[in-house]
């Protein structure tokens, strides 16, 4: 099967999965013992209000009709209104999603730089102290509960040392830059507002540190194990027989092969980052998609739940899709 076919097949799969995602989200949010209306309105709400809310949520309709409404809504990007924020869910998503995207990208950059370096060093100095230290660091990184690390960082860097800002995306006295992408760092650079840029970056530090630390661990591990596997291959021996110096062997021969796996891991990391942002944003009070979705869950805000979970799953699935396609593209064994 040549590459073109592979791409088409993968895309088709993607759409089927998205459909499945919406279905599953629907099933979860509707076939539940918990009472969504009671959760919002409280136990003793007057009957009229209860009925009005039910109508608004479409709960009075038979189940399959509700399903089609949800489907139609999802494809037209209309998820209804959030009972909690009183905004259309789509508006909420548009406000919060770029914040998370910004955070994740920043964390990803940290993770790529440090993770790859860590992994290569660990593989090359296998079983010596740099390897052991980096392995322990990585293991701690992936074992650490993100919410706890966040609290620790807040305790030390904010309360004790005053190095981090209080929360949110910008200091309260600064106005956000004109919206182009919704990401304050990019938008402020585009508008030439450098002090806003630094302030936005400053606010990203805390959660990005937490997320970045954890992802550095993942990328470091994958880089290390991929390099180790490759360093045992015949062609590395050939490279040594050629008399190339160690740096060339490691970087040009070993890592070039490992990079395929590492890039795949980077793609997967985006998914992990999305997952991690949920709790991290909550702990830091960062107004992003993660925090929004948690609040939706806790208040059983159905429309918001469907909307935010669908968006998260689409992003996750897209990241996986890109990874699959990228892998096929980068590995000449698949391409030719």
């Amino acid at each position: 099967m040549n590459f073109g076919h592979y791409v088409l097949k993968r895309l088709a799969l993607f759409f089927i999965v998205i459909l499945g995602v919406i279905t599953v989200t629907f099933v979860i949010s509707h076939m539940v013992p918990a009472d969504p209306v009671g959760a919002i309105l409280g136990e003793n709400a007057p009957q009229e209000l209860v009925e009005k809310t039910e109508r608004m949520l479409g709960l009075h309709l038979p189940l399959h009709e509700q399903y089609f409404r949800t489907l139609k809504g999802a494809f037209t990007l209309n998820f209804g209104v959030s009972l909690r924020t009183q905004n259309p869910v789509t508006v909420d998503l548009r406000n919060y999603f770029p914040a998370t995207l910004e955070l994740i990208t920043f964390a990803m950059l940290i993770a790529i730089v440090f993770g790859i370096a860590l992994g290569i060093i660990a593989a090359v100095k296998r079983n010596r102290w740099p390897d052991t230290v980096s392995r322990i660091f990585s293991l701690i990184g992936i074992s650490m509960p993100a919410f706890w690390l966040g609290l620790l960082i807040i305790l030390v860097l904010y309360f004790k040392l005053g190095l981090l800002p209080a929360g949110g995306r910008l200091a309260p006295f600064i106005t956000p830059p004109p919206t182009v992408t919704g990401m304050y760092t990019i938008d402020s650079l585009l508008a030439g507002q450098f002090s806003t840029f630094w302030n936005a970056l400053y606010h990203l530090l805390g959660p990005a540190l937490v997320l970045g630390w954890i992802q550095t661990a993942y990328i470091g591990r994958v880089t290390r194990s991929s390099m180790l596997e490759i360093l045992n291959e015949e062609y590395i021996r050939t490279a040594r027989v050629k008399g190339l110096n160690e740096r060339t062997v490691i970087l040009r021969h070993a890592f070039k092969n490992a990079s395929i796996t590492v890039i795949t891991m980077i793609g997967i990391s985006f998914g992990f980052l999305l997952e991690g942002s949920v709790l991290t944003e909550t702990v830091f009070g960062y107004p992003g998609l993660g925090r929004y979705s948690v609040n939706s869950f806790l208040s059983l805000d159905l429309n918001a739940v469907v909307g935010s979970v669908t968006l998260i799953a689409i992003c996750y699935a897209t990241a996986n899709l890109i990874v699959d396609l990228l892998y096929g593209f980068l590995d000449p064994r698949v391409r030719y």
Partner: protein
Amino acid sequence: MLMNSKTKGFSGWKERHRSEISQFKEITFAAKKSKLTIAGLCIVLGLVVIALLAPFIAPYDPVQMDLGNRLQAPTMTHWMGTDELGRDIMSRVIFGTGLALKIMVIVLLIDLPLGVFLGIMAGYFGGWFDEMIMRIADTFMAFPRLVLAMAIGAALGPSLVNTMIAIAVTLWPTYARLARGETLSIKERTFIEAEKAVGTPTWRILFSNILPLCSSTTIVRATLDMGNVIRIAAGMSFIGLGAQSPTPEWGLMVSTGRDFLVNQWWVPTFPGLAILITVFGFNLLGDGIRDISDPHLRRGD
């Protein structure tokens, strides 16, 4: 194998199982060389011991309140201090160990057999059954685990049991895929054809041949997941979807302790540390097991 004077009887047992014994020796040699694996094993065993001996080693009752003694810093009488209701934190942490281990075991005990069973069925019989299972698995895997678990947990209502169900639902697709993949490659091998030719009943083939070959990959993967289960469960409790007061679940303790972070840092810190150490231990162990069973990495050490 020829049965002769060398291979009969008890002393012959060593002879007959020579290859298994030598494999075992090789594994223990590799394991001993990896200090990290040993450390992981020690941590895990230590945790099990603490969990089992909790009623005997915890100095106080984990749920007993003592409002006169609220929010005490760590002292000789309360090694980890007391929380906002005067309960001894160390005792709660100790009892939380057993809880965490229980959660992990129950979730994996449900998921591994379920996932592997579905995977083997899908792989072996193929056809529409395979397609269906795989599409469902793909759909579940399209969600980040934590998000899906939270959504399910929120829908079912906050409780520890619901948390376990939620996590179990998110985990089975991984094992199903793994088992299916293994089954597909094993299915084509000649010895399966030979079994079929001899007329071995299908269930026999699946149970005695395919299952053991699948199990090593799935078990390795499960050991890597053990820590994750505990972490996700703690995360759920942190949000408020999992264990409820006064259960001494670590995530819950961090959550309620959050309000006291600034001045009584010990309240959320120690339970979180417990989570870290536990997950760390399991990951060490899981890593070590994976390193040892992967022939690529064993060579050239």
